[in-house]
C-alpha cells in the first residue's frame, strides 16, 4: 500500500465511525479531537496494523495524532519491512 492508500484507508475507517463521508475528513486534524474515542482509534490502528502486517506499539497512536502523520508513520514502517 502506498502512503496515499493508507491515508485513504484510515480516513474511510474514521468516516465510518463518525458516520461521515471520507472526503469530509480533514487529514490534518488530531483524530482524537474530531469525535473518535481512544478505543475507536485503537481499533482502527489495529486493523491497519493487521492489514499491513507491521509491528508497531499502540503508544504510537498517541505520538502521531493526525491522520496524515499516522499514515506517514505506517507507510515508513511498511516501506522498511518491504526493504527487509
Amino acid at each position, binding site marked *: 500500500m502506498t502512503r496515499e492508500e493508507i491515508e485513504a484507508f484510515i480516513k474511510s475507517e474514521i468516516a465510518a465511525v463518525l458516520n461521515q463521508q471520507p472526503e469530509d475528513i480533514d487529514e490534518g486534524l488530531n483524530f*482524537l479531537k474530531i469525535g473518535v*474515542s*481512544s*478505543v*475507536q482509534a*485503537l*481499533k482502527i490502528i*489495529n486493523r491497519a*496494523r493487521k492489514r499491513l502486517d*507491521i*509491528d*508497531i*506499539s*499502540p*503508544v*504510537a*497512536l*498517541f*505520538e502521531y495524532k493526525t491522520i496524515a502523520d499516522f499514515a506517514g*508513520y505506517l507507510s*515508513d*514502517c511498511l*516501506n*522498511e519491512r518491504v526493504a*527487509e
Partner: protein
Amino acid sequence: MITGMTDYNQRVKRWLPGGVHYNFHLPWEETPIHFLKASKSRVTDLDGNEYLDLYARFGALIVGHGHPEYNERLKETIDRVLSVSHCDMDAEALELIHRYVPSAEMIRFGLSGTEIVQNALRLARAWTGKNRFVRFEGHYHGNADNIMGGRSPKKGLPIPADYFGDLKGTQGRARDAMETQSYLIPWNDAEALEELILHQGDDIAAVIMEPVCINGGGVMPAPGYLQRVRQLCDNHGIVLIFDEIITGFRMGLGGAQRHFGVMPDLTTLGKAIAGGGVPVSALVGKEEIMRLLVDKKVIHAGTFNGYPLGTAAVKATLELLGQHDGLPLAQMNERITMIHDIFREEASRIGLPLVIQGPPGCASYHCCNKPLEHPSEYTFELMSLDILLHQKLAEYGILVSTVSRMYPNIMLGMEDVAWFRERIGGALAEAKEWLDELA
C-alpha cells in the same frame, strides 16, 4: 497569570519542546499534568485535582512527598556544605550501600542511570579487553546511542538495527553505535544466550540485564535462569552487569541480587537510591574490576559526582529504609499488596481480566488472565488494554507510571488504600466498557 493547566502548559510549550521534559512521558495525556503541591502519597495539580501518586517520578520517589526527616537532612546539607567535592557524609553513604547490596565491594557515584550504565560497560571492556555487550529484548538501560531500542534480524547474528515503528528508536544516533557494540537477544532464554556466547564469546565483554524485566512488563526470571547466565559468564570471561536502577531498593534493600542469590560482577543503581528528591546513580561491583578506576586505567568523571546533597540523600534514604530491620519497606509492600488485592478483587467482580506481576515495589498490571513470561508477550492488543485502563485510573485520581507500573513509597498509608478502594470500582467499570468495545 495562571488560568488553568492547559493554558500553563501552552506557556511552557512555547519554550520547552513538546511541553515535556523527556520523550518517555505518557503520550496519551493531552496536557502533561503540572503539579502544585504534594504530600506523602498524594499530589495536587494546578487545577486543584488530587491524585494518588503511584507514578512516583518513574519509581525514584520511595521516601514519599515531604518526608520530614529526609527533607530536614537535605535542608541541613544545603545550609552547611552545599557544593564541595568530598564531604563528611561520604563514608556513611558508601558503607550503607556496601552493607545492603551484596555485589558492592566498591562504589562510585554518578547522576543518571544512562551515564552510569555507560561507565559499567567501559569498565567491562577494559577488564576483559573485549568490545561487545549482550542486551535483551524488552529491557531498558538508558537513552545512550549504543543501547537504546533496535531490533535484531530473525536470522543470523543478533546485531540490532534501527527500524521504523520503534518507540525507543531515534534519529541522530551515531552511525553503527548499536550495530558495532551490542547483540540483542530474547531474555529468559538461556539457550539463546549460550548459543551466542559459544560462537561470539571471544568478543563479548559484558552481559547486561534487568534481573527482573520491569521495563518489559514486570516479568520475573525463569527458575534457574539467572544462575545459568552467571555460569555462562564465568565460563567465558564475561562481566555480568545487573541493571538494578529500578529493583535496587524496590525489591528489598539488597535488590534482586540478594533476593535471587545471584551475584553480578557490576551493578548499576539509581532512582530510589537517593529517595527521589535529587538525582544520584551508582556503579558498584567487584573490587578487582573497580580497581581499574583507582589506577586511572579507566576514567570515570563528572562535576557533580558525590555532591553533598546527593550523598546526604543516599544516606538519609538508606537509613530510613533500613530502620527497624527494613520495616518501612515491609510496610510499604504490605500496603501496596492490599491495593493489588483490591484491584484484583474489583476487576474480578466487574469481569475484567487482570494480573498484577513483578515485585510489589515495582509491579505492573496487565489486562489478561495469565502473567507474562516473556517481554515479547506484551502484545499490541494487551498494551492497548493497559493504556485504556491507565487513562481511566488517571480520570479517577490514580496515577500509575508508563505503561501500567505502580510504584509505592514508604509513606503510603491506609488512607491511600481507602482512596484506591473508593475509586477503583468506577475506573474499572468504565474501563470494562472500553475494553469490551475494543475486543
